[in-house]
């Protein structure tokens, strides 16, 4: 595939991720922070997030599985996940967390369990999307091309 074609595909794919709400402007912020002194910054931060989120989701699953779990503990975990998803611009994950916290406040166990499934799903989806995005970037760079800068702000 020609570099120009790759770049076009990349631009379209990125646009779709924003359009579908997987990513928000905070992700663009991270891209803008990346420079030649740290060319893998975005990938590194995203990796950290997925390590973090996996631990949090596992912890949530364990907690919600208990007989008399503490809603405060669940809320604290979701709060952390909400924070880090917001930091990388993983908008859909963040939005599920917002709803999740509300259900904790309402002490609605069924809804909480539903949110847990949803948050797992959203993390899985955005992880795949970002992996695809990074792969596309690598292909462009390997072919000697430059990464298009998306103007979304």
């Amino acid at each position, binding site marked *: 595939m020609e570099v120009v074609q790759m*770049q076009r595909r990349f*631009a379209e794919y990125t646009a779709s991720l*924003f*359009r579908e709400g997987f990513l*928000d*402007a*905070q992700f663009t*912020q*991270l*891209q*803008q*922070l990346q*420079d*030649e002194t*740290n*060319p893998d*910054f975005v990938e*590194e*931060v995203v990796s*950290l*997030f997925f*390590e*973090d989120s996996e631990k949090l989701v596992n912890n949530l699953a364990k907690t919600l599985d208990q007989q008399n779990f503490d809603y405060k503990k669940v809320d*604290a975990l979701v*709060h*952390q996940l*909400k*924070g*880090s998803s*917001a*930091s*990388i611009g993983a908008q859909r994950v963040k939005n599920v967390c917002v709803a999740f916290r509300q259900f904790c406040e309402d002490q609605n166990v069924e809804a909480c369990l539903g949110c847990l499934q949803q948050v797992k799903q959203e993390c899985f989806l955005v992880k795949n999307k970002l992996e695809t995005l990074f792969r596309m970037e690598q292909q462009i*760079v390997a072919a000697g091309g*430059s*990464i*298009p*800068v998306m*103007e*979304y*702000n």
Partner: protein
Amino acid sequence: MLFRNKMELKPQVSDTPSQHQQQQKQEQREKHFHVLAVDDSETDRKILEKILSVSSCQVTCVDSGDKALEYLGLVDANHQDSASPSQSERSQEDGLKVNLIMTDYCMPGMTGYDLLKRVKGSSWKEVPVVIMSSENEPSRINKCLEGGAEDFLLKPVQLSDVKKLQPRLLKSFDQSCTNLPDIDPMTTDNSKSNNNATKRKALSPEPSERRPKMKELTVL
């Protein structure tokens, strides 16, 4: 389409005398403006560290209030409060400079507010403390400002937030740099107590300014 070339070299800028002075000042700052960043989230620490280093600051990251106090010499490794202020004073005499503390509010154990109070009650009290939080709660914001926080930033923190802080912080820092380099930058500032009242008035509208940013985000 604009292009972001990962291999790009920085363009050469011709040096005029004033630009040269600016560059010298910048380099001085780069060597000296030291930020202690406190956040329990590894993701957020990495992002904040990047934002600060892009802003020409030297950064030290710790993951808790306790670690921050240890770093400042306010508590020993066994988490006993230093018996006397001497340990932290010794750290400062040994040349440990911290020009700004940026701390998350919500942390397990010691909150950012607790850390703020501890710092303000210590020999590091002149160091500005900025608190970051994902919750836009006026009562929390006021509590922090009343507690002596320099500013309160809404998370996720952006480069523009730090850029807004810089002029205020760097003014007194630069003054101290051109004077005796060993003096703590903040003590050469005109009496902080005078400024507190006006500072609070100036600061309290700021958190609400974060709101307009949200409008920008929805324009996709």
